[in-house]
């Protein structure tokens, strides 16, 4: 089937910024074109107390890139004897992706982080060859990203607290994936605040 490589496995992720908190969410479907194989494939990975990355695209590359990045961040923490900051993680990821500029990994990435001392929030996105973005308010990647962009723009407002942020992120994700056959089958939302991370599994359409 001459289909887009990035929609071969399906999946979607979304990140939104709030006031001293960030939300990152993803669906749980793992499929091969039209067949759903598993419904527990989350695409969010933690790299530090407050730093998370979500990868969407070809599932094998999601796993490979997340593990390769973990390797590099582990070495960083061992050498530097300190935890990663979000912008460092972002730079590492974009370097990893750009190294393979001419034989790229087929993943789009979202990097989110929070500085616990200042409460400053970071949300970055990257295409599959590591194009650098600025610190943005809202970003989504994956097969349903076009639908979620619209919903995200509607529900987002600046300086939301953790509860409002959770609701906005969840509704944008759930309603977006309901219109996309290649994503869905449940969702997970991480709300990251200075002192805690709340992980919630959402009830969504199981199709």
């Amino acid at each position, binding site marked *: 089937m001459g289909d887009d490589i*990035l929609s071969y496995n399906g999946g979607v992720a979304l990140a939104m910024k709030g006031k001293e908190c960030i939300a990152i969410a993803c669906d749980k479907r793992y499929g091969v074109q039209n067949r759903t194989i598993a419904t527990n494939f989350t695409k969010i990975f933690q790299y530090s107390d407050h730093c998370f990355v979500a990868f969407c695209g070809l599932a094998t590359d999601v796993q490979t890139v997340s593990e390769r990045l973990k390797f590099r961040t582990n070495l960083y923490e061992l050498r530097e004897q300190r935890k990663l900051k979000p912008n460092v993680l972002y730079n590492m990821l974009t370097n990893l*992706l*750009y190294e393979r*500029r001419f034989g790229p990994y087929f993943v789009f990435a979202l990097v989110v982080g929070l500085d*616990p001392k200042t409460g400053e929030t970071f949300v970055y996105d990257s295409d599959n*060859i590591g194009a650098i*973005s600025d610190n943005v308010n809202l*970003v989504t990647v994956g097969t349903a990203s*076009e639908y979620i962009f619209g919903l995200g723009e509607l529900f987002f407002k600046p300086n939301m607290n953790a509860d409002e942020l959770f609701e906005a992120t969840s509704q944008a994700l759930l309603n977006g994936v309901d219109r996309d056959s290649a994503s869905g089958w449940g969702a997970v939302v991480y709300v990251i605040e200075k002192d805690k991370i709340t992980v919630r599994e959402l*009830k969504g359409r199981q199709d």
Partner: protein
Amino acid sequence: MSGLAFEQPTGGFVFDNCRRNELLLSNGVLPGKIHKTGTTIAAITYKDGVVIAADSRCTSGTIIFDDNVLKIHRLSDNIYALGAGTAADCDFQTRLLESQLELLKLNQDRQVRVATAVRKIQQHLFRYQGHLGAYLIIVGVDVTGSHIATVHPHGSIAFLPFVASGSGGYTSLSVIEDRFKENMTEEEAKQLARDALYASTTTDLYSGSRINMYVLTKEKLDKFLPYEVVGVRSDKQNDYTLAKGTTQVLSTNVKKIEFDIVNEKVKTTTGTHEAMELA
């Protein structure tokens, strides 16, 4: 790379996915959409220096991925680059060039010249035969004066008094061609750059949002981020705040993050110690 667990990044490009990707593409699979900065970038020389302007839209296909991208990259204190084409290539190639120029500046103990930056990037891009999609405008002021050069992915360059590039480049260029004159004042140059960018942000669908502008002379660098917001968003008519509890949750797991108090400072409010009035 086969089977090696210890992958020490040595810098430069890695080609280990190429064979796999070739196979995928030959099976009729389409490659994904990478971020391009379909864009408008323009630079104009005037009496004392240069004015550079860029829009701020980044698109992936027709979806606007980022509405506020800075397409002006610093190469050196006196040299800046504007990038159009593939976003990742513009970002990384200018970063690479910036590091090389910094080392060169430290080595030769002199301010770097625009011609040097242009020659270096041109030779680098030529080696990759156009596969690095970086359409750059290199702009700067050095001891020999102010210069603008346009660099194409295959390595061709041109030094010009004014230039505009990107998908909206032709639109901007027609505005500049109409009104450009030698030795303009700063205000005239800024107005011309603004008008040129305005024309393309409103007509080219891959350019839009804001006009960012820098004014670079021997003495100063003025940054206008943004100079003008062309794509003004109207306010939302309704409040779409969702009430707590809108979303049905299957399970919640709260992980507390351990905080280590590194140091503690107690600050007393010291006022002037006035003796108590005992009346």
